[in-house]
């Protein structure tokens, strides 16, 4: 079993989906998908007078976007950042409360955020995604919001600091760059 924490607004989590599923399919590994709220920031605007720290944060954010777009293109994805990054908490709460296979919902939620720039914290939008994906979500949306907060708290308590985060053999890995080691652990858990 591989536990994977995701946030729909995280470009890194989105780009990890295909390689993670490929690994899981190849090793017949089941995945427990869990929500985690990442902090995604707009690229700061170039200021007339930047401190070194402000300049660092701006250059880092620009670089992260450039690289995400580059590697997305390798996967055939035209990655376009939404004008407003927004919140995805409601969709993450729904993810936490789903019975059975969560993958159909994950796919439509990522698609909605990154292609349609949908608001995944909006009741009507998220309800439509539940219906579109055909998943079994029995609780209400208010319940989903509460569930998300408790899931987030638990994730932070065990040391999750970003997404995608993988938990396997008592180790936490943040980022799909760790998949080679994760594969090794999945094959030799001892």
């Amino acid at each position, binding site marked *: 079993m591989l536990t994977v924490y995701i946030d729909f607004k995280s470009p890194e989590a989105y780009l990890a989906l295909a390689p993670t599923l490929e690994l899981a399919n190849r090793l017949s590994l089941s995945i427990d998908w869990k929500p985690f709220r990442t*902090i995604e920031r707009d690229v700061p605007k170039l200021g007339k007078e930047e401190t*070194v*720290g402000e300049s660092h*944060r701006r250059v880092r954010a620009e*670089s992260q976007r450039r690289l995400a777009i580059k590697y997305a293109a390798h996967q055939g994805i035209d990655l376009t950042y939404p004008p407003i990054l927004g919140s995805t908490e409601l969709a993450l709460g729904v993810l936490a409360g789903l019975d059975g296979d969560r993958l159909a919902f994950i796919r439509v939620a990522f698609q909605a955020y990154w292609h349609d720039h949908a608001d995944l914290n909006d009741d009507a939008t998220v309800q439509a995604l539940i219906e579109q994906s055909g998943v079994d979500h029995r609780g209400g949306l208010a319940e989903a919001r509460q569930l998300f907060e408790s899931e987030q708290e638990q994730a932070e308590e065990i*040391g999750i600091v970003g997404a995608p985060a993988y938990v396997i053999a008592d180790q936490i890995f943040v980022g799909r*760059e760790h998949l080679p*080691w994760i594969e*090794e652990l999945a094959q030799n858990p001892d």
Partner: protein
Amino acid sequence: MHVLRSDAPLIVYVDIKSPYAFVAIRPTLALEAELGLQFDWRPLTLDIPSYLGSAEKKKGQVVKSSGRSQRTWNAIRYSYRDARRYAERQGLILKGTEKIWDSSLPNIGILWVMQTARDKLADYFEAVYPPFWRRELDIEDISVVEACLQQAGIDASGFAAFAAFASGEGRALHDDLQTQFHPNGIYGVPTYVFGDDILFGREHIPYLRWALSGRQGAAPDIAYEIA
């Protein structure tokens, strides 16, 4: 020296005090050897307090900290744990540093080695990086850096003048590079400059191998390669 230009096929920026650069050194040297190329290794001395706040530890306990939220601390702790487990896979020891070091001297040492003994660069990295991360080196002491150069079989006479504040050629080169990083899109280490690509992190090594060896097949995804 322009920060993005070189006659070499790849520019590699590193900093002795970065744990992520530490675990990138051997894989990057291995890539260089595998492809039979010589990369242009250069220093980037991180100004850590400007973007991560500062802290000082004694006997493993934080005794001074400023500008760091709990979330920042959690991320820093994860980063160290992550770098440490990969260091251990390479047979290396990585102990958390007790303060934020000024690593400009050993970094200027990289420029010295590139100019005077290019073929000894890997030996210099071995003389500096592993002992520093075992907390055995005071890298702010020039005699310590000179001893590392000598241990790597490199003539250190002239290094003190090369690294001297105000007058040293190496110091001037180092400081000039520092001013060029942010305006040219570079902010951390290891950074690889390959043509128009500026790639932060050793996870790009698979892509670099692919690009440097003729772009055969599909471009690989990011990955920390393991032996």
